[in-house]
């Protein structure tokens, strides 16, 4: 692997990201599975970096998952998105940032479609007006939340309490980065680093001291596939795709995985559990799995957030071995506590994959 070759490509795909005043929209999946991540993201942006991130309670899902599951027609999805944009305009923002990759992909695509087919945009304006009496305003800048963290990766590194370095060996941690498919596969120029060698996460890893691992199935989908996961009968597809990725990365002995898509960390985490329970196979060291993180969680760890405040207890694959490697201090007893230190019943442990 020739690093300079990748650098050259990265330099070709640099994207303009304004550094302040964002209209923030949440992700359905992120909220449900990784609530700590969105909390951490806003906290980092607002309190650590001092930026303006506005959120309105009136924004909703973009409808993307339903659209990609064919539960919504294209025009419905577009009108919901137009409503979101309208909300942004109504609050006086021009920069739109979303937490979800599916949303990000759709926003990009919808803007592109409206540009190509102005009649379509007119039609959606009309729909929006008819149903919500709102006026569409298109964002000037569109970013995914990981673009923001990428932009401020060096500032975060400067404030770092921990680095992606194995404290026992002093070696950089071996990190697999996984990019959500809809981040740049459809519009390579809209993603940092393009579609083939995206740099958005690799840049964070580089800045925070880790070593990026490039393995053969790196570019591949985690297997969500919308309906392929949502319908129980189809889940073999979803699981097999994750399996393929893990088989491919296994020889590299990664310490951790970072993702920028809401669904991927959930699937890559849970499918490890299912694969272990079904086949007995585990991919990490000593019978553990390979922990899978959102980039917000990793940024939070680097900045010294408490792992249980970040919500790492919601992962099925144990994160403790990695926390130990990073030298992150944590209180074992606090892991499964409720709010205000309320003692909750500890979850059951799986049979084949080690948990703490």
């Amino acid at each position, binding site marked *: 692997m020739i690093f300079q070759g990748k650098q050259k490509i990265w330099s070709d795909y640099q994207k303009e990201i304004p550094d302040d005043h964002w209209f923030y929209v949440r992700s359905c999946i992120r909220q449900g599975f990784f609530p700590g991540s969105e909390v951490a993201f806003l906290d980092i942006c607002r309190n650590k970096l001092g930026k303006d991130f506005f959120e309105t309670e009136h924004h909703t899902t973009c409808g993307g998952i339903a659209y990609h599951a064919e539960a919504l027609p294209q025009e419905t999805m577009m009108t919901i998105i137009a409503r979101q944009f309208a909300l942004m305009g109504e609050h006086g923002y021009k920069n739109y940032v979303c937490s979800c990759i599916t949303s990000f992909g759709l926003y990009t695509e919808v803007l592109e479609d409206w540009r190509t087919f102005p009649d379509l945009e007119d039609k959606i304006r009309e729909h929006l007006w008819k149903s919500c009496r709102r006026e569409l305003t298109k964002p000037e800048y569109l970013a995914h939340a990981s673009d923001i963290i990428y932009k401020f990766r060096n500032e975060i590194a400067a404030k770092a309490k921990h680095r992606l370095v194995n404290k026992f060996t002093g070696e950089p941690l071996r990190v697999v980065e996984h990019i959500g498919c809809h981040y740049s596969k459809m519009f390579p120029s809209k993603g940092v680093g393009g579609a083939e060698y995206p740099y958005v996460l690799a840049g964070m890893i580089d800045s925070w001291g880790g070593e990026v691992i490039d393995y053969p199935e790196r570019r591949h989908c985690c297997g969500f596939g919308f309906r392929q996961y949502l319908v*129980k*009968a*189809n*889940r*073999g*597809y979803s*699981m*097999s795709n994750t*399996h*393929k990725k893990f088989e491919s990365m296994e020889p590299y002995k990664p310490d951790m995985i970072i993702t920028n898509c809401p669904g991927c960390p959930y699937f890559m985490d849970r499918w490890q559990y*299912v*694969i272990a*329970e*079904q*086949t*007995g196979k585990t991919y990490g060291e000593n019978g553990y799995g390979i922990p899978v993180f959102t980039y917000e969680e990793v940024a939070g760890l680097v900045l010294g957030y408490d792992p249980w405040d970040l919500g790492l207890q919601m992962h099925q694959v144990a994160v403790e071995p990695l926390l130990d490697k990073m030298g992150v201090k944590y209180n074992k007893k606090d892991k499964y506590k409720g709010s205000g230190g309320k003692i909750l019943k500890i979850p059951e442990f799986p*049979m084949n994959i080690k948990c703490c």
Partner: protein
Amino acid sequence: MIDFGYSLTPSSTIEIDDADMSLFDELCAVEPDAIKCMSCGSCAASCTAGVFTDLNLRKVLLGLQRGCEEDVLPQLKSCMLCGKCHIVCPRGINTRHLILSICKIYNI
């Protein structure tokens, strides 16, 4: 083991790295023309048995080249050896004997 109601699916990707090509090499030793095929499909188009079954000599040959013999060999069972494929083959491959040799070597 827990039954989740779904399970891992086998991959359909042709993995040439793992394919055992020794039988194919043996075939080529007897039938050097086996690699002359340019996949034009004339054989399949004119096949007498192909009207009634999925017999497709082009695919059979390709399957053997890719080490996927299990997928394709059963097709040959319906061959009537009528030799039309031989007549139409633009590369002049003696397809009839090739079929017999395939059967002999792969022992279908």
